[in-house]
């Protein structure tokens, strides 16, 4: 039996506001093996970034952990990260799970040399490392992300956007993490630079046999980097499967509409689908299935009862009362 590197069970995290609780992460489950990559795709405000913050426990003050487990495989022993005291959690942060942040431009300190910032990260987590060894490690990391090691002596403002993003990836790899979370790491970059970063990230992930969680709103990017894809809507996963299944045989109406709402510049020009309405406010999400108000297939049961998230076929998870069949999909595409 293969033991996962990370296993998340029914994770819940709400933000407390004056108007009530925002149900940003509402019962999320998934697991990931070494060398595997999971793409989490969803629209802005669906809670995908909150998932990563909850996993790392780097939450703002008004965030409330509401339950669930994050099992992390520490050399064969499964540790529940949600139950650890903060000083023990620090041990797993960066060494166990690290993160490539969304705004790479702002996640480097402008007044320190880039190389020194990464050396600092290593020394923070492994205080006994001799400094020369740490520096040699950073030089190696720079080569891995195709940056000239001479640039270790430079400051962030001397870097271009793509170079900063590479430095941030090197930083996230500094302590040999088992899991790396990449939260929209290429959103601010132009496509040619984005292409290079994606290729490098994929290569490094396979070489180091890391598990990767890649978070993005861009379905095309997710399609390219992920072995499996989880579709998130209004604080919940609605469907998860291997990437081909998600694209070719989606069963959840939201997944199906989303995949067909995305234009492509290659292949035949397809009709684009629209999804009526807007995503719900998570302060007061709709009763029943959260997608029901926008779903063309919704009936009374959908509006009353929230469907459970279950495994419908091997490795294919779904929360829907009316899974789409091949016939329905083909009919819709022909319309």
């Amino acid at each position, binding site marked *: 039996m293969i033991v996962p590197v990370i296993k998340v069970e029914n994770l819940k995290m709400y933000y407390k506001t004056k108007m009530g609780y925002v149900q940003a992460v509402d019962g999320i489950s998934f697991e990931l093996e070494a060398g595997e990559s999971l793409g989490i795709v969803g*629209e*802005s405000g669906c809670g995908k970034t909150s998932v990563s913050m909850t996993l790392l426990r780097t939450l703002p003050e008004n965030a409330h952990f509401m339950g669930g487990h994050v099992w992390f495989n520490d050399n064969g022993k499964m540790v529940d990260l949600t139950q650890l005291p903060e000083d023990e959690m620090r041990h797993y942060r960066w060494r166990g799970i690290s993160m490539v942040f969304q705004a790479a431009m702002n996640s480097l300190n402008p007044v320190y040399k880039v190389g020194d910032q990464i050396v600092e990260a290593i020394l923070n987590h492994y205080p006994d490392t001799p400094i020369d060894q740490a520096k040699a490690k950073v030089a190696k990391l720079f080569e891995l992300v195709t940056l000239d090691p001479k640039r270790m002596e430079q400051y962030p403002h001397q870097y*271009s956007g*793509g170079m900063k993003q590479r430095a941030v990836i090197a930083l996230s790899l500094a302590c040999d993490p088992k899991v790396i979370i990449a939260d929209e790491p290429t959103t601010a970059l*132009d*496509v*040619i*630079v*984005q*292409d290079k970063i*994606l*290729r490098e990230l994929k290569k490094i992930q396979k070489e180091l046999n890391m598990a990767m969680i890649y978070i993005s*709103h*861009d*379905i*095309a*990017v997710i*399609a*390219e980097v*992920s072995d499996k894809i989880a579709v998130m809507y209004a604080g919940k996963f609605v469907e998860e499967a291997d*990437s*081909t299944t*998600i*694209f070719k045989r989606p069963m959840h109406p939201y997944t199906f*509409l*989303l*995949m067909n*709402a*995305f*234009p*492509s*510049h*290659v*292949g035949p*020009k397809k009709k*684009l*689908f*629209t*999804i*009526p309405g*807007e*995503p719900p406010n998570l302060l007061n999400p709709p009763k029943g299935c959260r997608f029901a108000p926008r779903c063309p297939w919704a009936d009374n049961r959908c509006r009353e009862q929230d469907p459970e998230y279950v495994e419908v076929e091997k490795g294919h998870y779904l929360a829907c009362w009316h899974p789409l069949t091949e016939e329905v999909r083909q009919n819709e595409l022909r319309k």
Partner: protein
Amino acid sequence: MSLENKGKKTLLEVKNLKKYFPAERALFARAKHFVHAVDDVSFELIEGESLGLVGESGCGKTTTGRMIVRLETPTDGIIKVYEKNINEYNRMEYHSMVQMIFQDPYESLNPRMTIFDIIAEPLNIHNVGTLEEREERVMKLLSEVGLTPPDSFLWRYPHELSGGQRQRVAIARALVLNPKLIVADEPTSMLDVSVRTGVMQLMMQLQEEHSVSYLYITHDLAVARYMVNRIAVMYLGKIVELAETEELLSHPLHPYTKALMDAVPVPDPEYKRSEPNIIGNISVPIDPPPICRFYDRCPFREVLGNRCKVEEHPPLKEVAPGHYVACYAVHEGKIMK
């Protein structure tokens, strides 16, 4: 051209348009160096046709659009609308023909005005109709852009609307004077996928109903494919390739267009993209040498010996009907479809 535009009038004509911005100017000193943001750009737009300006950030696409709506003064060159230089129109005349939609619907609407005031403002400025007529026109536009029932939106403020709804308000405002040309600068790039297609389809539908042309500025080739008849690809202030949309996407010729197309991720996990064939990174065109603007990054720069290194930037030349390319290697048949 194979478009059904024969007999229609030329709406917009841009000729040798240039915009240089001073770079690194010391206090009181005269600028010595210039960023060539837009450098000798020419194109035409026929009534009812839409053109996409596509390129990466810093390629000059937005500056071109801003000059066309007179938000920026050209350094050199001519812009004509209906065969008349745009400076010869007075402001009112001009803006009843040419309007703009901006990228960020959170910035482009005045937060202290109601939706009615925002959409009716151009009517007030141009003194069109009585108050009742204005209200009727605004109501009609609101329902046309899909904000229904319109009277429930009239007296609301922008902060009460979502991003997609705000962009619909911006579209209604741009349409209220029945313009002939709308410069749309990335109007859907801030919107979520599920909302974006709705706005794109709305814009396509309104184009037919109001017979308006778009100059559609975007970095996204896939979006441009659905919105425009022709695409002009820009690189560092120059148009490097211009062709009908499907022709350009199926037979790109310029090495930059090819690289750009290979770099765009495809929403299909089974599709294997080839790696973009391009050297190095994008730079800023400060006092660029007169040779081909793409020279430093071009993988084909030596196929014609040192010609690309010594001759001036290649002209946009028609290599197939309606398909223009600025590349000597393509002109000489060294790069094929």
